[in-house]
């Protein structure tokens, strides 16, 4: 599958990717390298992994990162309750000797996302979401897994990958990632889409929106992004906005200022943004967009 075919396949699943992004995804698949996606919240970084999984018809395994994420939550953990019961059962039946070998076997192992990802028969998509929230130690651990795709469990030995997962990492810049991690990955920056792209996204996701209203919505959101906002609305917000308008039966943005102002709840997510973008401003923007 070449780059344009991939782009079309993703568009069929409702994801309109820019040239840069489609190429980065294509190369990540072709070269077998992890792909690092950076960009503001709500521009569809996580969605790429989901769409890619359905394009490739494979499983999506997701690891959500947070500070303090460690091996027992990301790689594997033993099933302690089961182990304890098993030891007691063994003690009562007089087979305590064999118990040790048995309780550290596959049967008692709880897979976490990273281990699960390398043990699939068909290469899955491994999404390591918001890697910048995890701490440096986890980054180092992840690097090790990304370079040789095997995991060592002291009691069981080394588990090599059955298939090499396609790894997608996302970050939205809460902290800098290490150069070592960046160097191992292909990179794509996901920005806010231009007017044309965003219109195609809206059409792909909400096919019921009339052309006139769709144009108004995109025009409105695009100009709103140019205002000084604390949190610029992303694509997800735009889609919520469209859904809200549809639900309220609005077919022209300029008709009812009160309803428009009420639906701003879907676009503006901080108190000061709500305060600063007054009815006059929304009317001005809507008027221009119409």
């Amino acid at each position, binding site marked *: 599958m070449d*780059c344009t075919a991939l782009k079309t396949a993703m568009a069929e699943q409702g994801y309109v990717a820019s040239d840069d992004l489609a190429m980065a995804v294509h*190369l990540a698949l072709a070269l077998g390298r992890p792909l690092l996606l950076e960009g503001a919240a709500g521009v569809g970084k996580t969605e790429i992994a989901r769409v890619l999984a359905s394009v490739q018809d494979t499983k999506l395994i997701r690891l959500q990162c947070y500070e303090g994420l460690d091996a027992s939550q990301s790689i594997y953990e033993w099933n*302690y309750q089961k182990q*304890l019961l098993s*030891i007691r059962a063994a003690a009562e039946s007089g087979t305590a000797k064999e118990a040790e070998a048995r*309780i550290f076997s596959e049967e008692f192992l709880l897979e976490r996302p990273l281990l699960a990802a390398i043990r699939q028969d068909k290469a899955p998509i491994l999404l390591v979401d918001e890697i910048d929230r995890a701490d440096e130690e986890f980054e180092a651990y992840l690097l090790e897994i990304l370079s040789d795709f095997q995991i060592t469990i002291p009691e069981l030995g080394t588990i090599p990958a059955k298939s090499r997962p396609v790894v997608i990492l996302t970050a939205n810049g809460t902290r*800098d990632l290490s150069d070592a991690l960046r160097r191992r990955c292909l*990179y794509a920056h996901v920005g806010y889409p231009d007017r044309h792209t965003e219109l195609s996204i809206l059409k792909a996701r909400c096919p019921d929106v009339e052309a006139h209203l769709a144009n108004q919505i995109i025009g409105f959101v695009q100009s709103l992004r140019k205002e000084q906002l604390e949190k610029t609305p992303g694509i997800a917000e735009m889609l919520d906005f469209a859904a809200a308008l549809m639900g309220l039966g609005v077919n022209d943005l300029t008709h009812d200022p009160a309803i428009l102002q009420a639906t701003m709840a879907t676009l503006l997510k901080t108190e000061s943004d709500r305060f600063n973008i007054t009815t006059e401003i929304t009317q001005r923007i809507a008027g221009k967009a119409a």
Partner: protein
Amino acid sequence: MTRVTKFSGRDAGPSARMAGFMAHLRDNGLRVGVSEADAALSALTQVDAYDPIQSRCALKAVLTGCAEENARFDDLFDSFWMNGGKVKERVMPSLNSLSDSVHSSRSAEGEQAGGGAGEATAPDGSDGEADADGEGKLVATTLRQKMKRDLRDVVQTDDIREAEEIARRLGIALRHRRSRRRKAAQKGDRIHFRKLIRQSLQTGGEPIRLPKKSRPDRPQKIVAICDVSGSMTLYAQVFLAFIAGLMRSDDTADAYLFHTRLVRIAEALRDRDPLRALGRLSVLADGFGGGSKIGESLMQFSRTYARKFVDGRTVVMILSDGYDTGSASELGEAMRLLKKRGCKVIWLNPLKGWDDYEPVAAGMAAALPYIDLFRPANRLADLAALEPELMRL
């Protein structure tokens, strides 16, 4: 697109041109090395390399690593490959001079700054000056001689001893940052199940002793950056003594000073003999008491050393009055970059001790949003008084 650069017929072929492109990117500050070149070539085999749009996207994905590089890449690509038929410079005359042309990159100074610690502590730039022009060198030397101050006159060794004690206490105060990860411990708030299972094997599944785990304390690193420009001369004595003490009491600490440029002084200050340490420092601090370029120096710090030495467990301590001859926006940008490393930033400003001080200096105002703790300090006692505040940080 018909503006594709025409390369000299003597070029050794596509891979040599790619090597030339790599050198071009490196000259412009992108961090690309041999493995990136390799990846770029294999990426080009996966796309239609004759199509400029496809190859541009492909190279962009492989060769850039952050948003900023990503934004600059298109221009760099155009200036090399889409140069309207002109060859800007002879790119790769032959393969055997490849390594040569890589090393003689124009941005030698930038490379040095990014290089190893040992390299950077050497006074830089003086060689180039000397070679360039005999007369010019003489003038420059006399000028510099006047500006040079022996720091041994400025800082007293007694002060260093006192500062050492204060620095040690501050170090301990900062150490109380608890990790979120649990480790096996004598006393703890959670049961260490893995250990428990192992131990209960001996007792037939009866957990007799409950091993615990707790959150260990993690050491935090202090990075001190001291302003030694003209306006700070009065306070330099205190601050340099403090930094000297800090370096001697804490092995993980790191120190820099700046006036119009940034110098790493950690190695020099670790000299066993405090007096000799100051002597070595004087050599490095050439230009002491001159103008200050806070924004530029901090920007240089954020772009080079901070990438290596500053992480989420670092406290960056900036000792400066915030009077800058450079632009305020650069300082703000430098602070934003620094803060993104995940560190805590403490700014100690000697002027803040004045009764009616307001951080109105444009630079200071731009930096303020990125500062976790903004405090006055112009005596060693003030620094000592920081202890409880650092505990809370």
